[in-house]
């Protein structure tokens, strides 16, 4: 009897220890968000849009220490503004030597990081149509910014990967990705088709951000914290830049004017403040960097340790007239070396030692130069072109001029070189104008890039060629 009780007890104990709960293995993350349980309200899309802006700070794009920064530093290094400095550890040498190959990790990083922003723009609007009827204005605010970002990143890709920029070119453009689907294998569009897509996205975006539930940011404030996001003004500036590349001159003039009228050039007094992030005078769009994020252009000049990896060529420095406020804003004299100061101003002037600085990616100064160039390219509008050019010159404290014709076009390019140094323009400006790089100082065997060279466009990364059977490589690679 007693042993039967024991027997039953033992079985009960054993049975209770046999856990049989399938629930034990249904576990959900607590410190990340499960995408299947999210996107239930339109407000939740806002978080993903914020993440999209953060993606702009990936190393391969604008700020990156080791071999990154392909859309900022590399654009000037591949051109004619810098030569090897004493502390160069080989960073960006590939861009300087134009010897990028399809397996170059920096080239791959630029491609991957740009498309990763695009991925996130598409995630920011995935299924947002469900709320279009009920929350139209909120949807406008989120989708408008996402579309503009998407168009802009495609334009960045076009600048490096398309061999030419002609608006109607049937040459290889880039793959335009406008939905999130990891299984896609998009083919490259023609340059024309790419422009069509960028233009359409930007125009839709412009309309959307013009009609939102709440203002995105102030159009007029010059507070240093302003202009972090994309609003109508940013769309206008993006359109102006694109139309200049596409040589659609009337449109370039139209949109540049919209920006110029809304946000005038900075006064000489506030110009320096722009580079300290103390002011956003004439800043249209600024990618905001925070402490502990990479300092821009550190691969050119790093204040910590005073590392001069690349030094400006004398040609460039000599272009600035005496009294040109840009000279002091852009260049710093460190122990007898003139070094890039544009992105270390915050460090030296404000005692903010690592100099993490915002990237002023679109400015009114560029808009003047866009409009001036567009006028100059049109027949019979040299006067307007010169007026814009001189307006900029005089605000900056440079000597004005009276150029016409080809000299005017050259002067505009020279002014672009001075004004937009290390803002992601020089190589592309050469590419769309003379299609020749002529270096004059310490360039060893890398002094000239001729029009026929393959290096005007990056190769499509080897991994992409392996993964995407519809992808076409650029000629020469």
């Amino acid at each position, binding site marked *: 009897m007693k042993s039967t009780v024991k027997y039953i007890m*033992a079985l009960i*104990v*054993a049975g209770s*220890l*046999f*856990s049989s709960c*399938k629930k*034990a*293995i*249904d*576990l*959900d*993350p*607590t*410190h*990340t*968000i*499960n*995408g299947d349980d*999210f996107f239930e309200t339109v407000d939740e899309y*806002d978080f*993903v849009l914020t*993440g*999209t*802006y*953060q993606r702009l700070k990936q190393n391969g794009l604008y700020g990156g*220490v080791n071999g990154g920064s392909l859309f900022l530093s590399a654009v000037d290094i591949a051109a004619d503004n810098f030569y090897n400095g004493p502390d160069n*550890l*080989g960073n960006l*040498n590939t861009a300087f030597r134009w010897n990028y190959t*399809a*397996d170059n990790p920096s080239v791959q990083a630029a491609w*991957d990081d740009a*498309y990763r922003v*695009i*991925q*996130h723009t598409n*995630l920011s609007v995935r299924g947002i149509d469900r709320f279009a009827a009920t929350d139209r204005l909120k949807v406008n605010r989120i989708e408008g910014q996402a579309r503009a970002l998407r168009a802009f990143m495609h334009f960045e890709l076009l600048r490096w990967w398309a061999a030419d920029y002609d608006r109607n070119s049937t040459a290889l453009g880039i793959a335009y*990705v406008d939905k*999130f689907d*990891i299984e*896609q294998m998009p083919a490259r569009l023609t340059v024309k088709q790419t422009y069509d897509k960028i233009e359409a996205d930007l125009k839709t975006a412009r309309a959307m951000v013009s009609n939102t539930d709440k203002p995105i940011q102030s159009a007029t404030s010059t507070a240093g914290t302003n202009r972090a996001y994309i609003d109508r003004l940013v769309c206008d500036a993006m359109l102006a830049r694109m139309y200049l590349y596409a040589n659609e001159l009337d449109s370039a003039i139209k949109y540049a004017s919209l920006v110029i009228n809304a946000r005038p050039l900075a006064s000489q007094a506030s110009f320096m403040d722009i580079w300290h992030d103390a002011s956003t005078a004439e800043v249209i769009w600024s990618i*905001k960097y*925070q*402490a*502990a994020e990479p300092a821009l252009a550190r691969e050119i000049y790093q204040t*910590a*340790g005073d*590392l001069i990896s690349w030094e400006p060529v004398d040609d460039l420095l000599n272009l600035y007239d005496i009294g040109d406020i840009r000279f002091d804003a852009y260049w710093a004299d460190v122990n007898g070396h003139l070094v890039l100061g544009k992105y270390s101003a915050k460090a030296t002037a404000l005692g*903010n*030692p*690592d100099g993490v600085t915002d990237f002023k990616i679109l400015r009114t100064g560029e808009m003047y130069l866009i409009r001036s160039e567009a006028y100059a390219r049109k027949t019979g509008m040299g006067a307007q072109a010169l007026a814009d050019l001189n307006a900029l010159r005089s605000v900056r404290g440079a000597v004005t001029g009276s150029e016409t014709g080809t000299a005017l076009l050259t002067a505009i390019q020279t002014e672009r070189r001075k004004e937009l140094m290390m803002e992601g323009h020089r190589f592309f400006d050469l590419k769309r104008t003379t299609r020749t790089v002529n270096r004059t100082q310490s360039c*060893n*065997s890398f002094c000239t890039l001729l029009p026929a060279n393959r290096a005007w466009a990056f190769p499509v*990364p080897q*991994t*992409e060629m*392996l*993964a*995407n059977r519809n992808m076409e490589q650029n000629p020469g690679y």
Partner: protein
Amino acid sequence: MKRSLLFTLFAVLFTSFAWAQQDVTGVVTDTRDNSPLSGVSVFVKGTRSGTTTGQDGRFRISVPNNSILVFSFTGFTEKEVAVSGNSLNVSLAIAQTNLQEVVITGYTTQNKRQYTGSVAKIAGSEVNLQPIGSFEQLLQGKAPGVLIQSQSGQPGSAASVTIRGKGSVLGGTQPLYIVDGIQITGADFQSINPADIETYSILKDAVATSQYGSRGANGVIVVTTKRGKNAKTVLNYDYQYGVQQLPESQLVLMNSKEKLDYELYYDRPGGANGFGWSQADYDSLSKVNPDWEEAMFRKAKTQQHILSATGGNDKTRFFISGSIFTQEGLVKTTNLNRYTGRVNLDHTAGNFKVGISATIGFSKTSGTFENDNVITTPLNAYRWTLPYITPYLPDGSYNLTDPGGNPNPLPDLFLNTNLNKQIKAIGVISLEYRIPFVKGLNVRTQWGTDFTDDQNENYTDINTQANQVVPGLSGAFNAGSLRRVRTTGTTSINYEKKSGDHSFGIGLFNELIKRSTVTNGYTGFGLIGPIKNAAGITPGTPTNNFIPLVAGGETEEAIISYFAIGNYDYKNKYFVNLTARRDGSSRLAEGKKFVNYGGLGFGWAVTSENFMANQKLFDNLKFKVSYGSAGNAEIGDSYEALEQFGPSSYNGIGGLRLVNLKKDELTWETRSTLNAGVDFTVLKDRLSGSVEVYNSITNGLYLNRLLSSTNGVGSIVTNMGKLRNQGVEIFLSYDLIKNKDLTVNINGNWTGNKSEMLELDGNDEIVNGISINRIGERANSAYLVRYAGVDPDNGDALYYKADGKTITNVYDPADAAIVGSFDPKGFGGFGATVTYKSFELSALFTYQYGFDIFNQARVDVENPQYWFSNLNRNNLREWQHPGDITDIPSPFNDFQATTTRFLEKGDFLRLRNIIVSYSLPNSIISKWKMGSLKIFAQGQNLYTWHSFQGYDPEVFTGVLAGAHYPALKAITIGVSLGL
């Protein structure tokens, strides 16, 4: 007189028949620790008369004169001793012959004879004298099929363990570790005392690993710790002292004169003499040749104290131990200090048996960065710095005047700290109840926890290179904590029955494993005051950039299982093992969480057959074959199948970013293995060995399926491949000489493994950087453009085109070809043990061959762009003038790293361990009132034969990234004292 005559007659008679009786008494002990062995059967050879030893190991037996006594005990080698005199002390050694061992699989224990799977067993006592902090490294070369690669000599670092070839490409390849029945985290053993370990059992084939189902695909290492014995209490004290030193590097950089010659007289882009040295500079600097190795490294000391006690009676047995282990690293400032304690208790009360094993270890590790090619890493910087720059200035301060901007490694080494404090506790409690009225039936439940608490502290001093990327540029202090709790609960009902010629056993199991991991960390900046730790952090302001970074995370995972393990034998000749298991994992996609595993094995003891009775060749011969499956889900993070968004912020606003793609089809990798083997002993047990062959196929192999990066992601983990590993394992042990005073044993093992990619989901190949998986080729083959030397006319590097014949000076990644393999084709170990009286000498060599290493560390010192740093001596052969015949291209030629120029053979043979020991004879130690006293001296890694251009070719990822902290050479002496 008459009686005496009769007596004499009897005496003569008895003597002539050797029947004179005498009493013999003595003690039987275990050779390992001289502890008494109870229950040893003692009998006169050729008779059935005998006795067994008592609790204290003592026996008393009455034997005829001149007889031979046989001492036999399960698990120990039988010993025959001729009787001479009235007292006889005998020590028995653990059985070396495979066929007499016990097989421990974690869930079951079976006689090796009856077991049909493939399990290698290594006694802790064979290996635990080696002065290594992490126990898995002790097993190198000891067991066939088990590849152990320890890349780092950093104290406490873990090795890579691969059992029977890598069955996974992307998923984990490290085995499952089971200690006293519960899973513990792999590669995290610095807080565990190897001397507590009784046995290592390495489960290799599917009938064994399928018991672990979804976690078993990479093999299982089952560790049991020492338990108390039913014997008199024995106290043991062990002490070791060792000295370690740096092996010699075969990558020789330029000395000062060579480097200056190179700078001054070799043309390069930017021109020669980049630093503008004058002749006077040249003359003085070329005479400066500071010893950077001296500045970085030291002769490092190791010390260990272990105290243990074991004993018990027939109801309660115990083993307790405590240890202190301190190891200095070769690199100055690196070290490991470990303190451990253990209590193992077993108690029997009627039909109940309870067992507890509990260990707690505390370790404190001070480390330095390794295995990267970051310029601030001291192990890179000391090589890259210019050879004519001294470590210190004459005033004793750090020399920061390197004109090439190469950082001095010493501030980062000496001023920064990189500390890990770990508390590790493993506790297991088991309860077994023998159901009294059904013979052979019992229920058992066992619950255990592997608890780890890791506290990391990194201090970055303001005066170091690492500070240059610190926000605020004023030093940083980072603290991170990780707390992981893994609980394993196993409950089973077991039944055993023997009836006539049949006997069988079956166990039904249920198991739940839960793991939770919590991480927290912060980094604070502005370490500008005198306090160089958390208290020294300066609060952040908008201008000083000292804004602290904070992070935290928590994950949970669970596996639930139901399984059955059965065995059957007929006439102790034919054996069957059977496992069936069903596992569910929280990590995998909905609807794909559960999967079934199973294993079936047959064994045949041929020598037990009647037809073998008359043959003399084989003492033992057994064939076995098994087939089954085990799984692997070590892929990605704990929620790998879900689309996950993680934190992100922009402009001070919190947001989300995609961190993991959804994988609706993600399921287990399943590895099925067919194993066939033969175990034998011949030549009167002098030669024993085993040969096994295996064929294992991994289905649903995790691979990164390439995606168009235009989608924002370049690849996704997919169950898409099929991989085969085939191999042969041979183990042989031969007693060359075996007599009373002298034994000489030689043994060796060899494993050959070949992997082949069978399917890639419709693709022909998947390239991942410099490795490729291509159908019909070995997994992870090296994939590089083939270097074809230097064009003597212009100094251009030459490459083979894809066709392998055409030579070009244009580097094109599309010309890459399969040029080698990163995984060894073969490996093993061999050695010898000589005992003479109380002396023992044993040596172990280990070897690995048939693999390549991509030497990134050499790339970084052969790239002529880095002329401002020190370079490989090879660069003195650089092409300079038309007609130069050399293998180093012109510095004007585009330098390309990913070519076969930097792929090297990794083959090596290593004198892994040599040890000589002396046990003082009983006559002396008994006078000193001691149980045993043994002294020993050993050498570890004393010499390695290899051709790799670096310190050591033992590199497990196929790439030596740089900053190599090599495995150390060590000499250790020690003493082991038993009371």
